[in-house]
């Protein structure tokens, strides 16, 4: 079920240059939410909603968290929102990461690039709680854009790489995978990040039965009625990122 809840901004924090963490309190936190699902948020002044991965569900405290980077007019407006502001939030949307099929104590690789991290954070929390063993590769453009390294590290072995080497390793996320995560074999791989990262992960794990990426697309409705967000499938069909995804097996769609 999809709900259009009115949520209240109860926290706004800049956690890296231009990257904000926002907590939204209200009913949505009590909905059954699967890691990898997203919300579509109505922002004052913007005519379309903006999609964001659900970065954390805190049922007890009654809020969900999103983490967003300011990249345009909508996210700029979001960063200006005062605590107490009420927002219409549509969700939970899409299908999350498949995790119920994992064997007990599965070894899992998480691959994150930049603001691909938010949905992977919720995933990581849930997987760790279920007792799975996590290896976590985090890529960022540069030092002052790094965030959530420690949050992730509490749930598994975590390494960071920056494009310019200003923090920890230097290079692309694929370099980090070669370096530090190529010896183990994983029961499952989950990735989210910019298109080059997702392409690389898709190629690398093309034969892997449990390798998943969360795709991005320009959206309007977020619920499957407008066909804005389609991706091609190998059989010349198509999938809607919003309602058939955003999570797909790496072979399911043509990025």
């Amino acid at each position: 079920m999809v709900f259009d809840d009115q949520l209240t901004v109860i926290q706004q924090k800049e956690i890296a240059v231009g990257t904000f963490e926002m907590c939204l309190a209200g009913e949505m936190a009590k909905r059954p939410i699967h890691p990898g699902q997203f919300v579509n948020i109505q922002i004052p002044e913007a005519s379309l909603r903006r999609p964001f991965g659900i970065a954390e569900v805190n049922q007890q405290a009654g809020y969900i968290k999103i983490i967003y980077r300011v990249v345009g007019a909508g996210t700029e407006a979001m960063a200006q929102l005062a605590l107490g502001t009420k927002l219409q939030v549509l969700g939970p949307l899409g299908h999350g990461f498949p995790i119920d099929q994992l064997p007990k104590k599965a070894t899992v690789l998480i691959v994150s690039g930049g603001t691909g991290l938010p949905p992977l954070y919720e995933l990581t929390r849930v997987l760790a709680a279920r007792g799975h063993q996590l290896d976590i590769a985090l890529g960022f453009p540069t030092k002052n854009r790094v965030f959530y390294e420690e949050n992730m590290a509490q749930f598994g072995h975590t390494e960071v790489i920056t494009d310019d080497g200003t923090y920890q390793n230097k290079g692309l996320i694929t370099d980090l995978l070669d370096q530090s995560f190529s010896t183990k074999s994983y029961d499952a791989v989950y990735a989210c990040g910019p298109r080059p990262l997702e392409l690389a992960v898709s190629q690398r794990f093309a034969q892997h039965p449990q390798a998943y990426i969360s795709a991005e697309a320009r959206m309007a409705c977020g619920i499957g009625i407008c066909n804005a967000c389609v991706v091609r499938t190998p059989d010349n069909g198509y999938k809607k990122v919003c309602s058939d995804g955003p999570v797909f097996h790496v072979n399911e769609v043509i990025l």
Partner: protein
Amino acid sequence: MSILATNLPGLNLKNPIMPASGCCGFGEELGQLYDLNQLGAIMIKAATPEPKFGNPVPRVAETPDGMLNAIGLQNPGVAQIIKTKIPYLQQNFPELPIIANVAGATEADYVAVCQQIGKPHLVSAIELNISCPNVAHGGMSFGVDPQMAYELTKACVAASEVPVYVKLSPNVTNIVTIAKAIEKANPAGFTMINTLVGMRFDLTTRQPILANQTGGLSGPAILPVALHMIHQVHLACDLPIIGMGGIQKPEDILEMIIAGADAVAVGTANLIDPFICNKLIQALPATMAEYNIESIESLIQQRDKIE
């Protein structure tokens, strides 16, 4: 008689509100959110003879109080629509009048789709989409030429067993010329307006945002253009009009009826709030009371008397 009821050829509607074509898919997703039996009707996504993937992405862009879309009539083809989409609606929402949106690249395409889908056991009416700005062939090219529009309408009226409504393009110098030409082919009415052609550019790439370059402008931004064209056609022609273009509030519905519409469709607003049609239906009576409007039918009658 409900104060919200309104009657058009083939469409005895319990209220004047329906989701517009392309903004509600085939009802499967909205049907999970609320009971579609409550709607006046539903205008399903365009049907073409064969399945159509549509345009490359990005297909949407934002504009001030509006959006551009260049979906390109993506649909599973008329056969599949008849086989699975319409039965889904009929089984789950038996009281919901279905209006099929018909498109194609050639007159033969339109006629073929009308012949297949234009049957009373399938749909209540047909909406001829001769105004889609997002396809290379057909679409809007029919809707901007009076002679072509007339001939296409005539052929489709002949091919259909249900009333045919013609969807007009606003991208014309004189919409009355087009409407009057079409009127001679005896359609049941007009639906209007389709989207205005527009464009956005990305400042970083310095290229159009949409892969298709241009797209159709919809949403509140176009409301005054829609009101004007509906009014013009209403004054010039005798056919009923299903009005659309920018509706987001109950007030907009009443304003569009005053302009000349007999029912209305809601497009873009569904993409921003999927519950909107349901909310509008609930809210309309109170707004009518505020402006001393007894019923939709009385509003229509009083409007037509004045002129």
